[in-house]
Every structure is written in structure tokens, then in C-alpha cells.
């Protein structure tokens, strides 16, 4: 379908609404129908998680060859600094992973890594937004919004696209990470989590149930009469339908958020009862994510950590000064609940058509930041992974140099990553477009190649 035709249809409310409900068509047979995108704000160090660099361990404390006193985002860098933790080999593939992520480490054979990611920004806000929208500038639609626009919803009582912010707060650049940008507003990610319900969902406390029902009944009576006076205006019928949809959402959303309906074993698997309150809160969000995709939500964005605080690395993965303390706080929060989510999806057969993505902003420097025991931002190298429907487990694409300073082989970008994700959803990233201010815009800008080595 041509862009202008598609946009024309969006102008016609009724058809647009039908599309929102019943979904569009993929370009070819998809492997995945739905997506859970985990996002760790702050810039997770690839060098302390999934990108093992024996040479960095060996030369720790020495100046980085060719990169002495390099100036990065916050300033000058010191010498090479090894990871404070050991790397261990996990799974049949023998993938080297930090010892501090034991639960996720057990799943490496299912993961497909991209070790050669690069970012266009070395700053949190733009880099977050770039990972999620393909552009460093705000105002462009996020991957979830593109997916909702392309494929529509798989349910008629919940949003198509949900963003689950962390209990610690929203990520850098906040709602710009789940915005619909210039796409129609119904593709906006609806943000809520296990502790904060969807806003405006509940009938105001001062209004009784029968009053609410009769009020809506009267409004619909006026609407029907009004529509009868204006035949031919399909938007009017579409708006009438949204009130019915809203009513359905009011019934379904509390049900999906009712985690008490889950078994004790499930709660234990995720760790919702952990004494670590941040772990428990993220675990509840993971459980919520599973319940959402189970009920036909197309795309879930799930945050583990939040924005940059006045103290670097406190609220997110931005370990500028105290890497060890920061990550010993963040690792356990991420590890068990995320692994539980993957195992649970698998056990319920959902992984057969669900894609799980693990993403972040950028990587970190192999050197320590001068005068500190932390690492500065590194947009030239970072690691992400994906697993699930259509993904070749145990694979890896691209590599960094001996120290992990730069991606050097099969250098990749967010556009390649999203081209691959869209491909798995049955979408050609060059054909998924929306005209805006002179250009047929894409999630992948004018770039992007499908990373075929990651495909099963």
C-alpha cells in the first residue's frame, strides 16, 4: 500500500479504527508476532557484561595503546581498567559472560548477540532516543509505535503498545522513548507499570457505577442522533466505537495488572517477594510484561533502571565513578527477573512467536575515568542481544577490538538492529514508511541492513 493511501486511510476515522483493532498485514510471513524490548538506561558496560576481553584483563593498569589520555564525554581518561568481576563460560556455546549475571548466563545458548553496536550520540537522552527511534532527535516514532502502526493490535481491550517504566523513574528523555512521534497518536506507547496503573482508566471516585452507565448511555444516544443527522461522516461512528473500546479496556486493564492471580511458584521464579525492593519491583514489571503479551499486546517496552540522577550511576547503569558499587546494585535487579521472564515465556509456549530484545544506549570505555573507578560513555562500541522467535540462539554478530574500545568487524547500528527486528516481524524496513515534512520516514532512516547471521 502506498504511503499516501495509507495516510488517507488514517484520515478516515472508522477505517483507521478498524485497522487499529484488527491489524495491518506484514509484508511477508513473520517469525514473530509480538515483542518485549528490555531497555537498560544509562549505558550498560559491554566490558563488564557480555563482551569478554582477555587482553583488557592482561593489560589492566597500563595506558591504552594509541588512546592515552583520550577525552571522552566527561573528560580525560586514565589507564585501562579490567572488569572488577570474573568472566565465566556458560552454556553449550561456552559464551563468556560476567559471573555477576548467573541467571541470564544460563540462557546464553538462546541469545543472539550484536557485539559491534555503535551509537550516533555519546549523551544519554539522544542515545536512548536513538536506540528506540533510530534518530538522535526527539519527535520521531519509537519502534513500538512503528510496529503498532504496521501490524495493529491483537486485542480489542488493551493498548497495542505498552511502555513499562522502572519504579525508580522514567528513562533519559522520558516519553520521547515510547512516543508515536508524527505517527497517529493511537500508536503511542501507553505507560504504566505494576505499581502505577493506566491514567484515567478508573471512573472518578465521586461517580457511582449506575450514574456512569447512564451518563454514557445518554451521551451515546446523543451521538447516534447526531450521526444520523450527518450521514457519510464515518469519523462520528469511529468516535462512538472508541467509547465502547474504552469500556472494554476499563474491564481488562485491572485484570491484566492483577498479579495476585499468579501462582506462588511463578512469583518465586521472578523474585517478586525479594527483600531487595528494587529487584521485587522490576520482577513485578517483568511479570506484568508477560501477562500483557499473553493477552495480545503487540509490543512491550520494559525498563530496568531510570534517568541520570544528580549522583551518576545511582538510578541507572551510568557508572562514571564507582563501577563496582553501581553494578553490584544493578546486576541482581536485572538478572533473576529477566531470566525468569524468558523462562516463563518459553514454558508457556509464547517464545515461539515472541521476540525478546535486550537494549541499552551505548557502551563504556575500557579505561577508567581519570580520578575515578568508573567508566565514561563509549558510543563506539556496545552490546545488545535478542532471543526468541526466528532468532539463531548462541550466535553473535560483529566484534570489538582487543580492549573493547571500538567496534571493528561488521560494525552495526541501531538501524541494522531494527531492520532485523522488523524482518522477524515480517516487515521490510524500507517499505514501512510515513510521509512527514518532505520525507517518507522510516524507523531505519535511510540506513539499515538485516543482520542475517542472527536469524535461525
Amino acid at each position, binding site marked *: 500500500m502506498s504511503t499516501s493511501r495509507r495516510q488517507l486511510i488514517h484520515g478516515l476515522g472508522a477505517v483507521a479504527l478498524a485497522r487499529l483493532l484488527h491489524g495491518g498485514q506484514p509484508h511477508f510471513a513473520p517469525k514473530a508476532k509480538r515483542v518485549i524490548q528490555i531497555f537498560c538506561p544509562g549505558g550498560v558496560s559491554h566490558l563488564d557484561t557480555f563482551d569478554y576481553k582477555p587482553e583488557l584483563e592482561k593489560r589492566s593498569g597500563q595506558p591504552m595503546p594509541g588512546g592515552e589520555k583520550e577525552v571522552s564525554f566527561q573528560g580525560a581518561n586514565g589507564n585501562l581498567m579490567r572488569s572488577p568481576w570474573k568472566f565465566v563460560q556458560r552454556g553449550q556455546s561456552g559464551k563468556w559472560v560476567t559471573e555477576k549475571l548467573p541467571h541470564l548466563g544460563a540462557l546464553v545458548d538462546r541469545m543472539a548477540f550484536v557485539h559491534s553496536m555503535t551509537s550516533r550520540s*555519546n549523551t544519554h537522552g539522544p542515545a536512548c532516543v536513538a536506540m528506540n527511534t533510530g534518530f538522535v532527535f526527539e519527535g520521531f516514532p519509537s519502534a513500538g509505535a512503528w510496529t503498532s502502526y504496521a501490524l495493529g493490535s491483537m486485542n480489542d481491550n488493551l493498548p497495542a503498545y505498552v511502555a513499562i517504566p522502572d519504579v525508580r523513574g522514567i528513562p533519559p528523555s*522520558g516519553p520521547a522513548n515510547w512516543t508515536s512521534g508524527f505517527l497517529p497518536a493511537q500508536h503511542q506507547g501507553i505507560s504504566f507499570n505494576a505499581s502505577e496503573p493506566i491514567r484515567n482508566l478508573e471512573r472518578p471516585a465521586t461517580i457511582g457505577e449506575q450514574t456512569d452507565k447512564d451518563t454514557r448511555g445518554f451521551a451515546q444516544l446523543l451521538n447516534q442522533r447526531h450521526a444520523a443527522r450527518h450521514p457519510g461522516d464515518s469519523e462520528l461512528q469511529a468516535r462512538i466505537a472508541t*467509547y465502547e473500546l474504552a469500556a472494554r479496556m476499563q474491564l481488562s486493564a485491572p485484570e491484566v495488572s492483577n498479579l495476585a492471580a499468579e501462582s506462588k511458584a511463578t512469583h518465586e521464579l521472578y523474585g517478586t517477594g525479594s527483600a531487595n525492593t528494587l529487584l521485587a519491583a522490576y520482577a513485578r514489571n517483568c511479570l506484568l510484561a508477560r501477562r500483557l503479551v499473553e493477552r495480545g499486546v503487540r509490543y512491550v517496552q520494559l525498563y530496568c533502571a531510570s534517568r541520570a540522577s544528580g549522583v551518576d550511576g545511582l538510578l541507572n547503569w551510568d557508572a562514571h565513578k564507582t563501577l563496582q558499587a553501581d553494578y553490584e546494585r544493578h546486576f541482581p535487579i536485572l538478572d533473576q527477573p529477566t531470566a525468569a521472564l524468558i523462562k516463563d515465556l518459553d514454558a508457556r509456549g509464547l517464545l515461539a512467536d515472541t521476540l525478546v530484545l535486550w537494549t541499552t544506549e551505548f557502551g563504556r570505555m575500557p579505561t577508567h575515568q581519570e580520578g575515578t573507578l568508573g567508566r565514561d560513555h563509549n558510543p563506539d562500541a556496545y552490546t545488545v542481544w535478542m532471543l526468541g522467535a526466528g532468532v539463531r540462539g548462541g550466535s553473535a554478530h560483529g566484534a570489538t577490538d582487543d580492549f573493547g574500545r571500538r567496534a571493528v568487524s561488521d560494525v552495526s547500528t541501531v538501524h541494522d538492529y531494527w531492520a532485523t527486528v522488523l524482518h522477524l516481524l515480517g516487515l521490510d524496513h524500507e517499505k514501512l514508511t510515513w510521509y512527514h515534512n518532505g520525507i517518507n520516514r522510516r524507523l531505519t532512516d535511510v540506513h539499515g541492513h538485516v543482520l542475517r547471521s542472527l536469524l535461525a
Partner: protein
Amino acid sequence: MFRAGLLCVVSLTAAAGPEILQKRCLSCHNPQAKMGGLSLASRADAARVLAGPMAARVSAGQMPPGGGLAPEEKQQLLAWLEKGAPWEGSLAAPSRPRAGRDWWSLQPLRPQSGSIDSFIEASLQSKGLALSPPASKRTLIRRVYFDLTGLPPSPADVDAFLADNSPAAYERLVDKLLASPHYGERWGRHWMDVIRFGESHGYEQNHVRPTAWRFRDYLIRSFNNDVPYNRLILEHLAGDQLAPGNPDIEIGTAFLVAGPHDTVGNQAEAFKRQQRADDLDDIVNATASAFLGLTVNCAKCHDHKFDPILQKDYYRLASVFAGVHHAERVIAPPAQLAAFRAATAPLEARIKSINQSLDALRKQAAPALPAAEKRVRAARREPVSPFGTEENFAPTSARFLRLHMPANAPGGLDEIQVWTPDGRNVALGARVEASSTRVADGNPDAYHARFLTDGAFDKRWFAAPGSAPVTVTLEWAQPATVARVSWSTDRLKAFQGRFQQPTLARYQLSLSTDGKSWTPVASDEGRLPDRAGEQERLFVLEALGPAAAAEFTAAETELAAAVAALAKVEKPPRAYAGEFRQPTEPVYLHKGGNVMQRGDPVEPASLSALPGFSLPLDSPEAERRLALAKWIASDTNPLTPRVMANRLWHYHFGAGLVATPSDFGFNGERPSHPELLDYLAQRLIHYRWRLKPLHREILLSRTYRQSSAWNDAAGKADASARLLWRFPPQRLQAEAIRDNMLAVAGVLDPTIGGPSFSLYKYTVDNVATYFPLDTFGPETYRRAVYAQSARSIRTELLSVHDCPDSSLPEPRRVVTTSPLQALSLLNNSFTTDMATAFAKRIAAHPDPVRHAFLLAFGRPPEPAEAAAAATLVQSHGLPALARAILNTNEFVYVH
């Protein structure tokens, strides 16, 4: 078998080369467009690049622009080149591949004779269609009220219009509304969409720009005063030059910096340059799209793929704006500036002279300083240290420790330890209560006081910034004899050096056994200050001796008084209108858009597709902006009047004659009525660029006044009424929905202008966070145009109804229909408040139901509606009726 296979591969590769050229290169490198002087349509055309340059540029990923070829295509093309580029025949240029200099919108306006209606009727007739009959007066008054003011007519307005049977009634109504101050609020808001006006910086920190509203007021004022559009353009680009000292005009340059700006500092060179390039990109894009309807920003990395805009053109405009910087600046009349200087100059002179006296005394003290320093150090205790400070005292039995600190105590603490004489820390795991704790939004835990006794030094407690005196109390399980207390701010020395956190310097420690009666055991008394400056001061006082020291402290007191007096002088107003500095170097073309790959310097100049100007590389900053402004605002620039006339049409009818109002290029839509567009553009110039007469002409046309009623036959031929066989019905814009609720409820505060009100709670902890409000006070009962518009922030009712995010220009709002709109109109407390107010308003009326319909719909209820309403009211009261009405289609649609 083998041979055949090999041949097959070779011939495949041979075919692949031209195929790739056709697919990837011909749209620019065809015999007509000949971008870069190169055609690749045949072997002969391409000869000069086949031998080497093509392989080099393709393998480097430089061609095609924007990332090069896909790996497999690249491989095939290179293999084909290596084989000597076997190629027969020639490639056909794609039909109409792109716009050239002969593109319609670049041609001079063509004189037209006729009227709005005659052009519309001519195109309708050619399709066998005709205008619809006139709309009813009730429909028309509601339409034109919302269109011109964004507000509904009152029942009295409707009655008066219905009662006025003179043929000029409608004309008078139009004139009244064009003269209404609400006109500027409505049409100023449209313009803010076009020019990406927002009241925060955007990007990661996204702090509010507290003075940005002054520009919003300027826009509203300018639309109300019908400032000629060509004058408005000059003011937007160079108001500071047109009328220096006139704040009402100088403020116009806020247009330049109305877009996003990254305030996060960056030490890495490439990213520093990128941030600056992004600022200029925003300004170039805003200027070219708003005034010219061109997507010049598409030519940042390469020549425009579709329009005759060279990459060099992009940098010509960037060069025009090379001296523009994001900043607030003082914008005040000369008299006010003079008064300010008159008030501050004597104080500044006084401060200077006191400082000179203090310096003289310091000089006088210098010889005795080393000895004095020794004496002071000997007499005083060690200063506190962020890495650890301790107080020892006589062994005392206690179960509580209390730490008092004065207001605004700096820094945080990572741990407090209380030691027994034998070295046991009884405070480990102690219960802690702090009278103040800094809160990070969403994470009250971030700076929790329990970190003080958790045995770890990585997490810190902080008092809330700007707090009153603070008390921290520790309570441990068993009474114990203690003799030492220690604490630190940065025990791990993680912040040593550049990031040094100030530590606690002023304190009192008390102990207690019962938490009621307290024994002071230590304080900062007698410590050497921890700041070098304060230490130095003590040494100087000691070296001076009593008499001169008294003189020194007296001077200090005077200085403090003068500084305080200076701070009290009222400062002249500032506005976020940008700063201008003469560039120290030229703007360079960035090869491939890469800021680290400089090409040639580019002079400030207009676009090459039209006749224009070019200035020397080092021309004065202001001259550049003025020259561009004059070029854009010229009567002979074919784009400027076409683009603006089309915007007017777009907002009146819901769709422009050119349906892409900021893109008059190849990718944009073609005009539905080209003659009418040129006619309107010329009328705009004829009216000396004033908008109101053009509005008037449009509004008085039969095309505008016709009914919106559906008609099956016409609908079949033209479903979207692109040819305007009916007036296209429109859903109200987000702002008008909210304003309509306030107006109908009778609580709208009609105050015009002034600082913005907020629809969110704003907090800053390094980055800004915006929490949507749950309750709305009367300070939010102003028109939505006065709601602070922070970038990327959703403001519920407005955002769900398609109010755009100001991160990007939005010349054409999408109109969507979604269940979230229903939820926010049904359940947000704003609706309940408005329903309550609306109910109260109609309750005072003898026939509340009838009055409700008149207020909300501009018509009385039909009998069946009145009956159903009465039933509802009987069971659930007037607020239920009010809430229902605010949720109806009729309330949010205009016909």
C-alpha cells in the same frame, strides 16, 4: 557442467551491474538531472568513473549518499566493475525522477483573474459537481467562531446573529471576530505548530525556559495587530536589527531559538561540533520549512534527492545563522536599561573599591603570613575532610546520637559511625531518622537516610536542597559506652579531584540514653575551616593584628552589604531570544554530513534555485540574517506568499490547496487548485501582506459558507471533498476542546498573555521530570495556548487529541480517534470539575436542559433529547448531564 555453471555466474554478475545502477543511482545520475555533472545512463556517459572513482566511492560507502549500498549489492557492483563493467544498451531515466529548477512552486506567480468561488466552481464543474447550498446560520456562526477564535459563540451571540436579518450580518460577524483578541490566540497557536515553538530545551535535561512565553505573547499580539507577514519574517530573523531597544520587536528573534537545544555539556570534540551543527540544523530547517515550504534539511549530507537544493545550499543557510546561539538575553527599552545601569554602577564601583582595600590589607599582611599560619594551625584542630572526619570525647553511655547541622548544609554523608572505646561501631544497622531527605522523583529511596548506617560507603544520604536546619538521629538497640563518632562524604575517594563533593563542616553532636534529654559532646568549634579561602582569611586576620583585622572585617561587612544591595536592584527582563556573536571562523560544508569531515568554506547566501544574494565569508553576522529575511520576504519570492496563503486555507478548510503545507517540493502534494493558490498568494501581496483581509475574503466566499451536509452522488466522486463540494466537517483541535469545556462550564479565565500555567508538576534533579497533574486549580482555567509546552511531554487531554510535541515543526496535525481520548474525557478530574461547574451554571437557569444544549451545541434540544435528558437528570442530577454533553461528538465537531 562446471563450465556452464561458471558462465552462468558471470552473466548474472554482468546483468547485476546496470541493474544496480538503475535501481540505486539513476534517480540522480540521469541525463536530465546529471547530479554532480554525471550521468550513469550508458557506458559512454559513465566512462570517466567506471575506471576507478566509482569503485572507490562505492566501496567507501560514500555513494549512494546516506550509507552506501547494501553489502550484497556492493559486492556485486564491485565484481562487475572488476570484470571491466560489461554493459550494453542504455538505462532509461526514471520518469519525472525529481524536481528541477522548473518545478511549479519555484515559478513566478502567474496573474489570475477570477474569485475564490469562480476557481472552486470551475474545478467542481469539470467533475460534474457544484457547491452545496449555504449552511444554516446556527451552523455557520459556530463554524466561524471556532475557526477564528477557537471558542464557541454564547447563546446570546447566536440569538443576535439569528435575529439580524440584514444581508451584512455575516460580514459584520466576521469583522467582529477578526477584531477579537481571541483571534491572535487561535492563529498564533497555529503558527507555533509551524515554527516548533516549545518552552523547554528538550533532549535529556529538558529544563524549562522560563522566559519563552514572552515570544508567545509577541506572536499573539502580532496576529491581533495584523502585522504584515513580510514584516513578521524580518522580525523573526532580525528583530534585533530592525528596532534595537524596542522589546516588542526585538523579541521576534526568539523564533531562531524556539527549537530544541542540548544543554548537556560534552568534552569529546566530535560531539561538541555535532551539538553545534544540530542547533544550526534546527534553525535552517525551521526557517526553510516555515517560510519557504522547502525541506532544505534533506540536503545536509548530500544534494537533495528530489528537489533542486544543493548540499551547498544547506550550508549557505547554516552560514547565515552561524552567529546565532541559544540563550536568554536582556530585552528592555533603553530607559529601563539606563535606569538599571544608574542603580548598579555606584554599587559596582563601591564593591570594586572595597575589594581594593581588602587586597591592600592582604598585601600588608603578606610578610607576617607564614608565621601567622603556623600559629593559627597550632591553635586549631584539623579541618573536616570528605574522606573521613572524627570527633573523640569522654566515654559516655548512650543509645542515641543526634547530629545538628545548619540550614543549607552542603554535601551528603555516606556513613556515620559511633565507636565504643574498644573499637566496635554501635551505629551499624542503627535506625536513622532525618528531618530532611532529598527525593529523587519516583525513587524516594535514592538518598535514603538508612544509607548512613548500612555499613557501605557507596550510597549517600542528602538533605533536601535549600533546607532549614537539619537533624539526623541514630538509635541503636542496646545502650553502650561510646567515645568516638566518625563520618564521611566520600570514603571511597570516588569523587577525589574534579568531582569533589563538599562535606559537612558545621555541626553539633549530642548523645542521649532515652532520646529525650541530650548531652552535647562535640561540635565543629575550634576546627580550621575546610575551604582554602576561609583558611586564608584566618591567616590574614592573624597576621594583621587586632587593629588592622578589625578594619578588614569591617570592610567585609560593607562588602556584603553592597553585594546584597546590588542583588536587590530589579533586573531588566530577559527573554529566550538568542544571542548573536560574530563567527570566528566560516561555516564549512560537512562531507556526508559528518562534522569531522570539513569541505570548502561556504558563504552566507540564498538558495541557488532562485535568484538571490551571496555575501562574503566574513560578512557581519546581523547583515547575513537581514539579507536572508529580505530575500524571503520579497514580493518576488514565489514561495513565501504561496506557502502562507496555503497555510491560511489549510486551517480554514482542514486541508491546504497544497496538502503538505511545509513541503512545496517533489515529495509534497501538488496543488489541488493551482490557479486559486496563485490568486490567493497575489491577494496576500495586494493586501500588503496583511492576513486579516485575506481571511475575510476567504470567509466571505460561498465556498466557505456552504453547508457541510453529505451528498451521496458528490461523495462518490470526491469522498474527502478535496474539491470542496461541501465544507469539510472538522474535529476541534486539542486546545479548542479544552477551551470549549472551560467556556461552556462558564469558568474560562480569558486573561490574555503573561507567564504560562503548568499542566504538570515540574521537578529537577540534574534532568527535569514532568508529572501530569491529578487535580487542576483555577490557575489552569486559562486557554490552552497559555499552557507551558515542554517538549516531549504528554499533557493528557491535549496530547491524546493530537496536540503535537514541539520537538519538530508540525505544519499539519494528524487527527486520530482512540479509546484513550474517551478515557481522558470521561475520567480525568478536569472533566469532572468542568461538569460540576457546567451543572452549577445551568442550574441557575429556569430550563437547565435547554440552556445546556444552547451553551454546548448552540441549539435547543429536540423533544426526544430533552426527554432523555430529563430522565438522566432525575436519576443522577445535572452533573451527569453536563459530563455526558462534554463527551459527545457534537461537542467536539464543527460542521
